[in-house]
């Protein structure tokens, strides 16, 4: 199953996002972003495994600013996903 990482510029934004998604029945886990993924250093992400488009739509509706969305490949790499 794919693993999508929605990046945020702050921990609190990531937490708000996770809460919003959980309330809409999308499982969301807050995690630190791996090194090199965040251009500004030390970022946070919310990991979702399904309904990524719906997740992004919900965050936009809740006006929670987000960064890029990545898909974690089977090899462990992160590639940006354009939605």
């Amino acid at each position, binding site marked *: 199953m794919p693993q999508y990482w929605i990046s945020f510029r702050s921990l609190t934004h990531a937490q*708000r996002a996770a809460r919003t998604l959980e309330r809409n029945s999308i499982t969301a886990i807050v995690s630190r972003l791996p090194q090199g993924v965040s*251009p*500004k250093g030390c970022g946070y992400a919310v990991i979702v495994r399904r309904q990524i488009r719906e997740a992004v739509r919900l965050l936009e509706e809740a006006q929670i600013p987000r960064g890029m969305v990545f898909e974690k490949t089977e090899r462990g790499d992160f590639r940006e996903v354009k939605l």
Partner: protein
Amino acid sequence: MIYLDSAATSLLKPSAVGYAMADALRSMASPGRGGHAPSMLAADMVFRCREKAAELFHMARPDHVVFTMNATHALNIAIASLARKGKRVVISGFEHNAVARPLYAQGCSVKVAGRKLFDPEDTARSFRKELTEVDFAVCTVVSNVFGYILPYREICEMCRESGVPLILDASQAAGILDLDFDALGAAFMAMPGHKGLLGPQGTGILLCRDRAHPLLYGGSGSESRLQTMPEDLPERLEAGTQNVCGIAGLLAGIDTVLSKTPDAIFQYEHALLRLSIRELQSADCERFTIGGNHQSGVISLRSPRVDCETLADRLSEHKICVRSGLHCAPLAHESASTLETGTLRLSFSPYLSEGELREACRVLRHILSDTVS
């Protein structure tokens, strides 16, 4: 011991506060620093505290709940965000030094409106007159000396209509009055965590409508390559390691306030106020009280025969804890003409019983009648 100094700090707290703090001490690391379980546990708890505070103050945005060291720290951030040298500000006649001192330190031109104690119409009228000529306003919701509940809703409305940013000092009101931050429309609302919110010392909250200027610069746990503080709340105002144990205790305190409800707490403390007025009716002292709903669970008094410091000492000998003097609010004493004498202040909490208050009043009456004989 009978504790009548909750306006200074709530010594009597729900037991859940201590348990939460001990648990945090053992199991929680620093939020926003590591990705490991103790760090994420801390982060989750801190966020839950933001959510609970947002619920208590009817806010849609928990990220606009900023944790501070105390109300003074919160007020300094708010004032530093609005004040510059020469800026004109109006304040009420009952402000604490935590408001007055930073304003003067910033070089503001300060006007004082509403000096009549327990006269909300005069306070409102006086504010309205000054609002046309100021850049921002600061107003306490409840006077820490007299328990006077200012007409804060009306003042908020006036400031909204005039486009004047307002800082509310809710130090004596948080957890006791039902304050709707979103509806009030103030720019900031500052409060301690350790008074009406029943949390530990070392905690405070600043509610922010929009962005604010940082007072402290340092690590924020994210966007570390940037050499400026983050643009977004709350990280913008929370540099450095947070008081995780304190916030855990504060969360437990806020939970208690939510379950009791501020309205019920106010009704209880107001009943204690009325009891104290009755019990001290025959005491040889001047009581500063209005008796109606314009006063919280705080009452000041003074004796014509013995100074308030001596009275406080005498009460302390009987293990009755009160505060005396100027209460860090010389402006309030100026307004009420008690600057030369100060006052003895009794302040109540939801954990003070009627029996305890009756006993304290009995001892005070005895001490005061002793001074007469």
